[in-house]
């Protein structure tokens, strides 16, 4: 229970940090920012990797969770990068 309270503390602080983190975002970056933070929510992959796999059902669930979270992570970062590359051309 003590661990849970400590983690709850982290949760609350992270939420406040997240609320302050972005404020004035130019509209051109709305989509890349959404896509980039979507890739971060693929952190569920870490959760999928610590699942127990004692029964067959659990193994299947863990595998599927790892698979889908990985798609989220890889796809998310690559799409974001591709979008941002388009913008960076303007520097030329």
């Amino acid at each position: 229970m003590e661990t849970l309270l400590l983690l709850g503390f982290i949760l609350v602080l992270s939420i406040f940090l997240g609320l302050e983190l972005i404020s004035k975002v130019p509209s051109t970056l709305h989509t890349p920012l959404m896509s980039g933070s979507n890739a971060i929510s693929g952190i569920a992959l870490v959760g999928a990797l610590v699942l127990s796999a004692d029964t067959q059902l659990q193994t299947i669930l863990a595998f599927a969770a790892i698979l889908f979270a990985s798609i989220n992570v890889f796809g998310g970062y690559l799409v974001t990068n591709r979008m941002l590359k388009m913008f960076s051309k303007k520097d030329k």
Partner: protein
Amino acid sequence: MDFQIIQNVSYIIASALFILGIKRLGKESTAVSGNFMSALGMFIAVSVTAISFVDPLVAIVGIALGAVIGSVIALKVKMTSIPEMVALFNGFGGLATYLIAWSEFTNGNLGAAQHVLIMLTVFIGGVTFSGSLIAYGKLSEKISIGKGSIISNLFVFVLYAAVLFLGFAVATPWLPEAIIFSNYFIFLLGLALLAGIGFVLPIGGGDMPVVISLLNSLSGIAAAFAGLLLLNNVLIVAGSLVGASGLILTVIMAKAMNRSIGNILFVGYASAASTSAKTQEQGEVKPITTDDAYLILENASSVLVVPGYGMAVAQAQHVVRELGELLENNGTEVKYGIHPVAGRMPGHMNVLLAEANVSYDLLVEPDDVNPSMDTVDVAIVIGANDVVNPSATEEPGSPIYGMPIIEVHNAKTVFVLKRSMSSGFAGVENPLFFRPNTRMLFGDAKSSISALVSEFKD
């Protein structure tokens, strides 16, 4: 024991990289490095976790397969369909948390706190998954069921029922055993998925960007809950960062469309029926041929190009750039009026024009161009509709009244390139088409502009 310390230190580093990454993604000059930092954080967090996974084969095969699928989709997809892809990826993330919570439930022997977290994670993860799939379907125009249809109403009803059932499922540890039926968890698994459908189905396609941003925020919250469940701090930090910053981004995006979140989720665009009767009789539509359009353009001294989703569909950005360059060589001043929400996602048009190598300083926002609109000789509207609809400034009864628009109707002449007379994504009539200074150039945007380009070359 030592390994656990290494793992936790790595998690701290990863968390810091996520925070920096999101921060830097919000500024143009640092966005690329921000994305790279957050990817590095993800790599660190995943690597130190993967090492300790009980069954390395399952982990490696799962990650490798996911990497291949995700990369292929991300690299093969056309720039025009990127909005759908973000929705799809987000849905997969939600599905992962849903499966995590399910797997934890099968462990049995749950404390009260764990029980509550599992129920909430399953529900939010499920809603994110199915909701994102519906958003994907709406954006790619595979799903056209909208608000008010029987199917949509049915799913909204299921959504309410599912929320009630979630309350029951959360409360089971404190309820008398007599009223708890054994398979309630299976019901929750199913209802969570149906609830996501009911959540997104009634919302109009034009509001999908905001909905995807909200679903993105939800998947972050689901990940944070999963982190509490698994007692994993990096999951909590990353999840709540995404959840909270996603919520702020959702509000920012809704503001750009002059809508409130509540209005988007629960009201939607009012039926256009009440206003369409008035606008019907505004006059007649005046078509124009490319020959005549060419003659007018040749004598114009300033031209404003206003692209919309139609340009994306027709893949016309390259010919548009070519036309712009020809006009400039002819001594015409060319600017591109970019509405923040033109297309299917904020910044959609910027991405497309950047892809076609249109110089960044030629892109102007509505606030910059509207005051001097009467000096513009020709405004070329390419497949845009709602973002140039004068009803938004002139008709208080219009469903889109108050939305900022590019006021092309104040330009001397307006060319509207359009496939047909159908209304825009918001389903609202556009009186612009009936204005005396408007000329309609019907047909596919790409071929119309190609025709203009070849006229200039001759």
